[in-house]
């Protein structure tokens, strides 16, 4: 990394807004070492960075034991195989570290979950540079593993059950993405069970033992139908026991290593003491509930790593300031065991431990999540179960630590509510002003109501909500916590309007996809077009949801989560896999990628074809088929038609009408728990991934162009009436009843928002945002000049972070097309 200009002090750097150099100057030596020690796992424009290698220890160990226990039932078989991994995988402790745990055998490795999907496994052959040395030998090992798993991964098993037509259309990659299995995706953690109720794994083992004894007594008692399910559940409880005991042994391996280093190798007395403390920490957690902040962070990190050793989790639902606060408060404020600076070091390292995590993902996922390996959006702020303000000193410490370590993962989503203090809001703003792109701001009162409206979560439970990935809230409670992200219910919504204008035929993948809704050239009224659009919208939602529902329903049999189950109160009680829909209230949503193009396209057609009659439907369809080639003036007319984000009722009314149709259908389709599937418009970097998959559109876009940056954000450069007009358009949406959540990207000027005046301007903007009832907004506050400089001289700007969509990434790690797309976003003067 290039060095900062040596003679510049912090004040000079602040004036130049080079926040990354300021962070380096301000953070402790330990944090500086640990931050620079991280091997970046996020793919750069789809490719892994030099030096990153796929980890072969885990798949090899897992497969050995999975094959050995071939006659065991699914959860028990998996538990034994994973326990074998925990007992034998190489572990490591980085110099200066106070927290440990990684899901690969070495710091530069990425996890490969071999039992998820054959189509992902086969991609490994095509990835240059990530096969460890000796390459030829390891390619052979990979081929052996792939041969074993071919046909028996979770996705292989689901695919055999799917309707063949659904399977082909889903696998075309045109209408959505994801995999209908808990092998990929992510899980909520039952923080109420583990942290609020203070249960360590030994406590859970005792609960399981009690259940087992009771069930075993009953199975040798009076015969009847009530005891029949117990036979299977006994096996599941056994599986939970196996994995929890292995997890305790795994932590003890770290304790042993820390003691070995301290007693045999380490010469520095201070570090020796730290290593002994680390050993004591790993001897205590996860076996027992934590006693202090270090143990609390370590317990949480072990839980997250153990869940990731079991499945490829692409998100990290967490609420650290809420669940770790009692320990921070005890150590820093009551017992004064830690100084605030020491606590800040631990907080910073807690962020770094998450930042270094990464797994091998398929190319579509890497392109869709450029620069990162998943969306670790941690939730801060919000209210307690009684509705009082939950913000505390740890909220502030996390926001301050984020500015010191400047990681692009995890990022934060801040639950704003009217009782948040000015001091906390200033810390939130400082993170945004420092160009981190986070926290995103979430409207807590709106989202609590929304959780009750869509999924019937009781008020107290709704108030525990955490971000599942970028956006969607879910409670952390026994019946609320969500074990499996419905990843494939992620819709490429631009296809709705594309198919309405092509009679359901996809001219990019060249097959009949959606229903035949009529020859668009013959549509005589806007209503005919809109009816076709509704049919295509329903078809896309139905196809994706059917696939996911089946994947969820069969997941305990096809994949299964022994560790996750052992950490869920409802599973420990019932003996059912955590992924079983039984006992969960249901919290599904359909992620709506590339959504706003629908409203802009429909409005343009209505205006230019049916109202002004400047063009005919036949002319429009013809221009679409030619990707607008030779029709540039016509294309510009369609670009200049009314566009979302300008407080123009002509197009805004169409947006609302579309959303109401979606909301109606969201209540008609049900998840395996019997609950609703509301829409959630957001994009990650799917707008770039889908740029070569979505055909030309009547908003003026050609095949190949980036789509809008997502959610309900206006098209880049198309919001010409200023920030208030954007907010007013977005405020016309009912953020409770029209969908689960709505992402809004905004770019603000770092120059305008400098100093106290800048903070007051931003705070006034947030008040307007809240008054209009929006549920989300996030900001980029890096100037065009800095971004252009970073394009020209990337080496010098390695640490510049930008908000892409629901996540942040280092600017130099995203593709040129994505960089350009961010620069094109309008900088709003407020």
């Amino acid at each position, binding site marked *: 990394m290039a060095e900062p200009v040596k003679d510049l002090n912090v004040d000079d750097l602040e004036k130049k807004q080079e926040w990354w150099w300021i962070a380096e100057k301000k953070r402790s030596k330990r944090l500086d070492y640990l931050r620079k020690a991280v091997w970046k796992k996020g793919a750069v424009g789809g490719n892994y960075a030099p030096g990153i290698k796929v980890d072969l220890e885990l798949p090899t160990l897992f497969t050995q034991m999975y094959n050995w226990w071939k006659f065991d039932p699914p959860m028990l078989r998996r538990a034994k195989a994973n326990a074998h991994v925990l007992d034998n995988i190489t572990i490591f402790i980085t110099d200066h570290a106070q927290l440990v745990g990684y899901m690969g055998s070495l710091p530069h490795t990425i996890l490969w979950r071999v039992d998820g999907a054959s189509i992902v496994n086969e991609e490994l052959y095509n990835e240059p540079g990530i096969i460890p040395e000796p390459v030829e030998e390891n390619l052979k090992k990979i081929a052996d593993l792939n041969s074993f798993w071919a046909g028996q991964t979770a996705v292989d098993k689901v695919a055999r059950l799917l309707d063949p037509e659904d399977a082909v259309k889903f696998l075309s990659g045109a209408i959505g993405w994801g995999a209908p299995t808990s092998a990929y995706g992510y899980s909520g953690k039952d923080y109420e069970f583990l942290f609020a109720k203070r249960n360590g794994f030994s406590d859970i083992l005792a609960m399981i033992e009690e259940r087992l004894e009771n069930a075993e007594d009953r199975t040798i008692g009076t015969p009847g139908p009530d005891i029949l399910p117990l036979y299977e559940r006994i096996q599941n409880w056994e599986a939970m026991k196996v994995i929890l005991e292995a997890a305790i042994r795994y932590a003890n391996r770290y304790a042993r290593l820390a003691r070995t280093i301290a007693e045999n190798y380490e010469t520095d007395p201070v570090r020796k003491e730290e290593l002994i403390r680390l050993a004591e920490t790993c001897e205590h957690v996860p076996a027992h509930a934590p006693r202090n902040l270090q143990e609390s962070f370590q317990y949480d990190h072990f839980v997250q790593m153990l869940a990731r050793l079991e499945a490829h989790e692409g998100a990290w639902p967490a609420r650290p300031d809420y669940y770790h606060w009692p320990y921070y408060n005890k150590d820093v404020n009551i017992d004064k065991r830690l100084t605030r600076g020491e606590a800040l070091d631990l907080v910073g390292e807690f962020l770094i431990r998450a930042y270094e995590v990464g797994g091998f993902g398929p190319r579509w996922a890497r392109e869709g999540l450029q620069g990162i390996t998943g969306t670790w959006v941690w939730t801060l702020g919000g209210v307690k179960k009684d509705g009082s303000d939950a913000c505390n000193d740890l909220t502030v410490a996390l926001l301050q630590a984020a500015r010191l370590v400047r990681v692009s993962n995890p990022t934060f989503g801040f639950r704003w509510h009217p009782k948040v203090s000015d001091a906390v809001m200033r810390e939130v703003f400082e993170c945004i002003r420092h160009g981190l792109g986070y926290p995103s701001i979430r409207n807590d009162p709106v989202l609590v109501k929304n959780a009750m409206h869509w999924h019937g979560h009781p008020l107290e439970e709704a108030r525990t909500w955490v971000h599942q990935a970028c956006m969607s809230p879910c409670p952390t409670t026994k019946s609320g916590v969500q074990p499996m992200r419905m990843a494939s219910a992620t819709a490429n919504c631009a296809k709705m309007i594309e198919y309405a204008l092509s009679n359901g035929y996809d001219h990019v993948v060249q097959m009949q996809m959606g229903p035949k809704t009529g020859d668009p050239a013959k549509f005589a009224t806007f209503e005919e077009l809109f009816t076709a659009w509704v049919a295509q919208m329903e078809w896309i939602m139905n196809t994706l949801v059917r696939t996911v529902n089946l994947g969820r329903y069969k997941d305990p049999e096809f994949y299964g989560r022994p560790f996750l189950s052992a950490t869920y109160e409802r599973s420990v009680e019932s003996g059912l896999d955590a992924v079983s829909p039984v006992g969960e209230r249901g919290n599904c949503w359909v992620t709506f990628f590339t959504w706003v193009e629908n409203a802009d396209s429909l409005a343009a057609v209505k205006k230019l074809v049916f109202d002004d009659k400047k063009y005919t439907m036949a002319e429009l369809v013809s221009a679409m088929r030619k990707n607008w080639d030779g029709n540039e003036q016509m294309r510009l007319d369609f670009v200049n038609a009314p566009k979302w984000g300008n407080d123009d009722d002509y197009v805004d009314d169409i947006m609302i009408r579309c959303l109401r149709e979606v909301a109606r259908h969201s209540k008609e389709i049900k998840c395996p728990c019997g609950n609703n599937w509301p829409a959630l418009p957001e994009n990650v970097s799917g707008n770039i991934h889908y740029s070569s998959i979505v055909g030309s559109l009547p908003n003026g876009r050609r095949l*190949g162009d980036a789509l809008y940056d997502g959610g309900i954000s206006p098209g880049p450069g198309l919001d010409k009436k200023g920030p208030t007009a954007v907010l007013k358009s977005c405020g016309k949406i009912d953020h409770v009843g029209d969908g689960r959540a709505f992402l809004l990207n905004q770019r603000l000027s770092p120059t305008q928002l400098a100093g106290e005046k800048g903070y007051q301007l931003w705070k006034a903007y947030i008040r307007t945002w809240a008054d209009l009832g929006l549920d989300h907004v996030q900001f980029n506050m890096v100037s065009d000049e800095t971004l252009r400089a970073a394009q020209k001289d990337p080496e010098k700007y390695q640490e510049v972070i930008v908000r892409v969509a629901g996540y942040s990434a280092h600017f130099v790690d995203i593709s040129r097309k994505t960089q350009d797309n961010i620069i094109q976003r309008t900088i709003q003067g407020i």
Partner: protein
Amino acid sequence: MKCTECGFEAPVAKFRYLYNARIDASITLRQCPQCQAWLAVDELAGSAQQKVGPGEAPWGKSAGIEGLAKDAAS
């Protein structure tokens, strides 16, 4: 249209369309089928404006050709 780099001449559509980062500008990025150069193309005039180098910018407001898309609102 004529390639500014190698002089290859063909209708605009023969130059492979890459992308247009800025939807409201009539400037696009296309690739010459003969010399593979990336070209900034005025779609209204049907003419290549300049080569866009790999280290330089493709587009609109981005690095290298800031201000080229003058017909777009800022």
